[in-house]
Structures are given as C-alpha cells and as structure tokens.
C-alpha cells in the first residue's frame, strides 16, 4: 500500500534542502573571498620588499664609493657632502666585486628576480643626481669630485672644512671676491702649522681656488665658482698619496619640494605583481 504524500512534509523537506544548499554555497563563497583577501594582503608586501632591497644596495654602494650625502631641498637647496680622497682601495674593483656578490649569491637568497647593472658607476666616475638640477661626480680614478648644477641654480653660500694628515709645505689661495659667502677651515694635523681660516666672499661665476702643496709632488686643490663643469660649481682634486678628509656644505638657490637623489646604477626587480626598473635611491 503506497502511503499518501503529505503536502506539508514535502514543503518542509524542500525548504530544508534549499537551506542546506544555501549554507554550503555561502560557506564556500566566504572561504574563496577570504583566500582572495589574504592573497592581496600578502602580495601587497612585494612593493615594500622591492624598495627595501633597493635601499640596502644603495646604502652599501655609497660606502664603496666613499661619500656621505645629505640633501635638503625645501626652500633653498642645501647639499652636504663628506668624503675621504683617495679611498685607500680600488673603487672599481670593489664595485665589481659587490655587483658580482649580489648577482651570484645575494639575489638567489631573496624572493623575486633582481639584477644590478652598475655600468654607470664602473666607467671611472660615479654620478649622483639630485633631481635634474644638480650632479655630484666622484671621479675615483683621478681622485677628483665635482658638484655642479644642471640648470640655473646659483650658489648662495659655501662652507668647507678640510682635515689633512700631513705637513703642508705652502698654500696658494686666490679668490675673485663677489657676493657669495665663503668659509674655509683647513686643518693640517701637523701641530706646528696654523690652521688656514678664511671668512669672506667669492664670485661663483669666476675661478677662486685654494691649493696646498706637500712634499713629493703631492697637492690638493679646491676650486670654487668656475670649474671645468661650469659656473656655480665646486671641485676638489687630490694628487699624490696624501689623505684628505673634507666636508662641504653648499647652499644653492631654487630648491623644490621634492628632489630625489639617485646613484647612477640600475636595479631591475620583479616580485609577484610588482616590478621596478629604477636607479639606486639615496634619498626619496
């Protein structure tokens, strides 16, 4: 005997089946959305990783090239450069060794694909670009550093502090006076020599220079104003085997709110959805 089909029972069963199906579908959707959210959270860290690797390589490359740079570009443009010339080691060899270590060992240990191209640094001159307005060239082959503008920036003041480990023989100082402040403190570690101090002015469109001659054809020359790279420039040129430590603060006109400072080497990176092909960043 076939039992009667209860209409209420049928409706109730159908409702339960729909409810169960809905529960299954929603839980699967919830899981899928959560996976996508987690994936986007984790992949967002790739941008930070790329920036951190660039920062680390740039920081260490600066150590090899051997200078400290600080740039403040809000209002006027202030450049502070500290350096030792000569470096005491072969800069070109060490740049190549560092690049080789990165490409063959370090990049294999970090996530993503990375490649450093330091061709811009291995031609004998390491360039640092301050936006598109200023260039700092470290000619490590000839022990010469030059700071010069690419545009219309003019020097408003220059402050030079020099420390040399040696006994100076004679010095020659010639200046074309002008309206730009110039301060020089030159200290020779030979206690018998009086430090050279100058507080005055110079003309940033003409040549002014301070040269110290040491025994054995060793000398160091500082040029203010007009150099081989043009006006409103600064240059230090060391010849021989003396160690020169100096810090120069130059105040240029026409700063900007944002002037990135970059080292002339290219870092190519790819990590997850992020990829970059940028110069080494000293300051953002």
């Amino acid at each position: 005997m076939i039992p009667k089909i209860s209409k209420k029972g049928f409706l109730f069963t159908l409702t339960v089946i729909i409810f169960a199906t809905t529960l299954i579908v929603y839980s699967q959707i919830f899981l899928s959305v959560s996976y996508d959210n987690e994936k986007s959270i984790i992949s967002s860290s790739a941008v930070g990783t790329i920036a951190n690797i660039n920062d680390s390589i740039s920081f260490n490359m600066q150590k090899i090239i051997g200078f400290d740079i600080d740039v403040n570009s809000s209002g006027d443009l202030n450049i502070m450069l500290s350096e030792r010339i000569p470096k005491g080691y072969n800069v070109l060899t060490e740049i190549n060794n560092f690049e080789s270590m990165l490409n063959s060992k370090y990049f294999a240990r970090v996530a993503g694909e990375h490649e450093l191209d330091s061709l811009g640094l291995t031609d004998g001159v390491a360039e640092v670009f301050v936006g598109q307005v200023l260039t700092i060239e470290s000619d490590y082959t000839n022990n010469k550093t030059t700071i010069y503008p690419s545009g219309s920036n003019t020097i408003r003041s220059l402050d030079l502090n020099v420390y040399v480990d040696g006994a100076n023989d004679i010095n020659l100082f010639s200046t074309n006076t002008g309206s730009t402040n110039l301060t020089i403190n030159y200290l020779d570690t030979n206690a018998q020599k009086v430090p050279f101090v100058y507080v005055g002015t110079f003309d940033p469109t003409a040549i002014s220079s301070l040269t110290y001659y040491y025994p054995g054809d060793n000398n160091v020359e500082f040029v203010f104003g007009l150099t081989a790279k043009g006006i409103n420039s600064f240059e230090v040129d060391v010849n021989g085997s003396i160690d020169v430590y100096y810090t120069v603060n130059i105040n240029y006109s026409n700063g900007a709110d944002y002037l990135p400072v970059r080292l002339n080497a290219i870092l190519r990176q790819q990590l997850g959805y992020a990829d970059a092909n940028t110069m080494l960043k000293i300051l953002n």
Partner: protein
Amino acid sequence: MNKGFFFTVDSFLALTFVTAVVLFALFNISNVQADSWNSIDLRTATNDALIVMEKSGALDDAFQESGSTIVTASALPILDDLNNTSQAYCFELVIFDGGDVSEPVFHVIKPECSKESTEFASIERPLVVVKGDLIKTYVVRLGGWRK
C-alpha cells in the same frame, strides 16, 4: 513494518544529512585565515630592526680592522639595538661571509629569547664594511618570531 519504524529511519536519514551539511560548512569556515596582517606585522618588525642596526652603524661596529684583514669585534652595539626592540618579538642575527654565504661569521640571539615559535620571518640584506683601507662584503640575516 509499523509507522514508527519508517518514522525513525526517515528522521535518522534527515539528521545525518543535516549534520553532514553543517560539518561541511564549518569545515570551509575553519579554513579561513584571519592572521595575514599578523604575518605582515612580524615581517615589518623584523625588517625595521635590521634596517635600524644597519643605518645606526651597529653592524659595522661588529667588525674591526686587524692587520690586513677585517675580523669580528664586539656584539654589544647589536645587542643594544636588539634590546631596544619590542618585548613582543625575538630576533636572531646571523652574518655570513659574502665570499662563502654558507659560512656564518657572526651569530647573536636577543637576550631572554628561545627559538620556539610556529611562525618565523627572515630578512636578508647585503653589508659592506669599510675599515680604513680595508673593505669586505657580507650577507646579514635577521630572523624574527613572537615570544
């Protein structure tokens, strides 16, 4: 067969079906991970600690010039920086020779930390040490975990 027998079988099947559906839904929900940001926080803290040690010069101070070579020196500057990190995190610093990155030359763990954690973050950075006329490259690895 009595009505009671059919009723019991029917309800048993229904209960089994509902239980299976609920279990399946709970299984899906249990697979949802809500701690991705915690992983990011750990990685960020580890990365920040390593950057501070590098930029403060603590890593450089772990080495010194000895004759014509650079050798390891005091771990105190690094320990100072590690002790200044959050008490919620532990760190282990290992420095490898850049010429042979399987060879550790320096190792230190943050005091009062032991390596017991299911989650671990690892950050590596290159390191160039310049001491006078000497220069040498290393790879630095900082591992971090929660206490």
